């Protein structure tokens, strides 16, 4: 047991002293999530209100005043035209229903879309249709209308599996045919099982720590709360981290590729699985779900992202138990197979 702690302390020290590990474990995920959040939260984050003028007598005046994004200024006639020319406003909704803008740009596009939508609604009224605004026309299922939660949860799924790198590292430190350091360690009276267990435990815990930091970051900075069902979420993060480390152990032990090949392999694998799960946008994921539905059924990133989303955004525990059992069982199987691969202590070549 003392040796177990000695190995565990080693792994923890290596995790905290390796600047590469710290960067890829803590800083890179925060940077990537920030980039994703900024890119896909779009107007909600950066869009300021659009200044406009509305001519007296415009049929759209009432509706326009009810739109938050519009900032209606009190200009009329020539004063409004002067304000448009001086860039004090971005457009004028005229009494005859036309829209006057200065040129092409984001704000002008917004104004054109708003005008177009209001006209369609007006046309619907004119045709005798009368929408009941007290009724909810969109029924809420388990799909969120926004793309951001899909992308963030898929990214989280990717990072939750980063225990992979600990798993690979463990094998390359103890399996004598994989590295000179492992040759050196193998000449000492070391229990391989103790070393692997200590590495798996610390790798999993470190990964939980990384993921919790990300969840807190999302909650406090981006107000995306994936910690509302905190205990189930932590359990999910824990078993996913264990599965990631077991996957790394398996990839590390099952072949003699150098570590410089296994690490990029892991990065690529995570990215692909995340893309399947929607990190690159929901379109690809929807295509996969229709064409090859079995892929995401067994995609660990998708299992994690779907479950954490349902737990925290939809408040349902649907599939939670299945997900936990899947990660736990698959992780144990991978560990067992990896230890079988690692049973040799004497090799044909080093």
């Amino acid at each position, binding site marked *: 047991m003392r040796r177990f702690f000695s190995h565990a302390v080693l792994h923890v020290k290596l995790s905290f002293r390796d600047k590469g590990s710290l960067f890829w474990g803590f800083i890179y995920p925060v940077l990537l999530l920030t980039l994703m959040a900024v890119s896909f939260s779009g107007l909600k984050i950066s869009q300021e209100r659009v200044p406009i003028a509305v001519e007296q007598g415009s049929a759209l005046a009432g509706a326009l005043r009810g739109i938050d994004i519009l900032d209606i200024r009190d200009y009329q006639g020539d004063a409004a035209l002067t304000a448009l020319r001086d860039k004090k406003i971005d457009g004028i909704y005229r009494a005859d229903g036309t829209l006057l803008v200065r040129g092409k740009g984001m704000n002008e596009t917004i104004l054109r879309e708003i005008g177009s939508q209001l006209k369609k609604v007006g046309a619907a009224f004119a045709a005798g249709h009368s929408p009941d605004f007290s009724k909810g026309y969109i029924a809420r299922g388990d799909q969120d209308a926004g793309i951001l939660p899909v992308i963030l949860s898929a990214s989280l799924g990717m990072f939750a599996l980063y225990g992979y790198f600990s798993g690979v590292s463990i094998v390359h430190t103890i399996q004598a045919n994989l590295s*000179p350091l492992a*040759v*050196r360690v193998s000449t000492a009276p070391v229990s391989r099982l103790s070393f692997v267990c200590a590495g798996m435990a610390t790798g999993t815990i470190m990964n939980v720590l990384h993921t919790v930091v990300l969840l807190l970051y999302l909650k406090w900075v981006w107000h995306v709360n994936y910690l509302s069902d905190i205990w189930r979420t932590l359990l999910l993060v824990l078993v996913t981290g264990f599965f990631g480390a077991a996957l790394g152990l398996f990839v590390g032990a099952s072949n003699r590729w150098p570590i410089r090949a296994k690490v990029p392999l892991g990065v690529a694998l995570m990215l692909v699985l995340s893309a399947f799960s929607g990190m690159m946008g929901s379109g690809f994921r929807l295509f996969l779900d229709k064409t090859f539905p079995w892929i995401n059924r067994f995609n660990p990133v998708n299992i994690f992202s779907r479950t954490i989303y349902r737990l925290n955004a939809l408040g349902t525990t649907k599939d939670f138990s299945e997900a936990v059992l899947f990660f736990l069982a698959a992780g144990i199987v991978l560990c067992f197979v990896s230890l079988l691969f690692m049973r040799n202590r004497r090799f044909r070549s080093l």
Partner: protein
Amino acid sequence: MQNVCEMRQVVKRYKEVTALDHFNFEIHEGEIVGLLGPNGSGKSTAINCLLGLLAFDEGGVEVFGRPVSPDDMDMKQRIGFVPQELSFFAELSVADNIRYFAGLYESDNARRDVMVSEAVEFVGLEKYVKFTAKKLSGGLKRRLNIACGIAHHPEFVMFDEPTVAVDAQSRNFILEGIKEMNRRGSTVLYTTHYLEEAQELCDRIVIMDEGKNMASGTLEELIDLVDPTEAVHIAFSEPGDRVFNMIREIPGVVDIQEENNHTVILLTPPGHRLSALLEELKNHHISYTSLHSELPTLNDVFLKLTGKALRD
């Protein structure tokens, strides 16, 4: 004297390549044995077989009188290994590295801390204990590599080319350290490319090539094996046939060669005939402007046994 390790008729093949070809070898307790050979001669293969990490095809390997086994923890407890490659954790400090490796052998914290202090002192890294290993210079890294391998006071230590790419000062420090370890009771197996190191350090030398034990013995025994001569380089004031004919008559002179501006006289047995030669020169009033003598070296023996062809 008891054998610490023994390899008998060991054959190791890598597909078509035979790395060890019925290799025989033993080390007696308390010895420093040098294992010399050109690149690819099988030195590291032999060491890996001794460590129990490499499977071999034929023969037997024993360490401390028992067949070597990768699961023999008691045997591993008594062995130390300093590999050729730097094998420590680059991100950890000097002290943490030595503490971890010592901890693989010693579970008592107090005793382990003593081992760490002794190892640090032994390799002269006192000023660097808190340095991160990757920030050390090449020579200091080598010393740390050694400290990690010997901190647990092993009875038998294997050094696999520990002085590759280190400066003369560090090399000297390392060699002195190994001698001190030996004085304290450790048996040492030392592989190197640097023949002068083996000449300086080792009680006995084994020369291997193409997986075979070509010769073994003390330096003197090895030199005797290869028909040795002492080369006396003389620049005569008035060289000529009279001088050369006179020299050819002196007992022990086996050959005379003309080189650039001087003459090389080969004497045998080495170390015993120079005074007789000088006496004869004096008696015959033959004057010279310079003279120096070269005794045969391990390098001569090595090249004679392994040939001068370049190796991979």
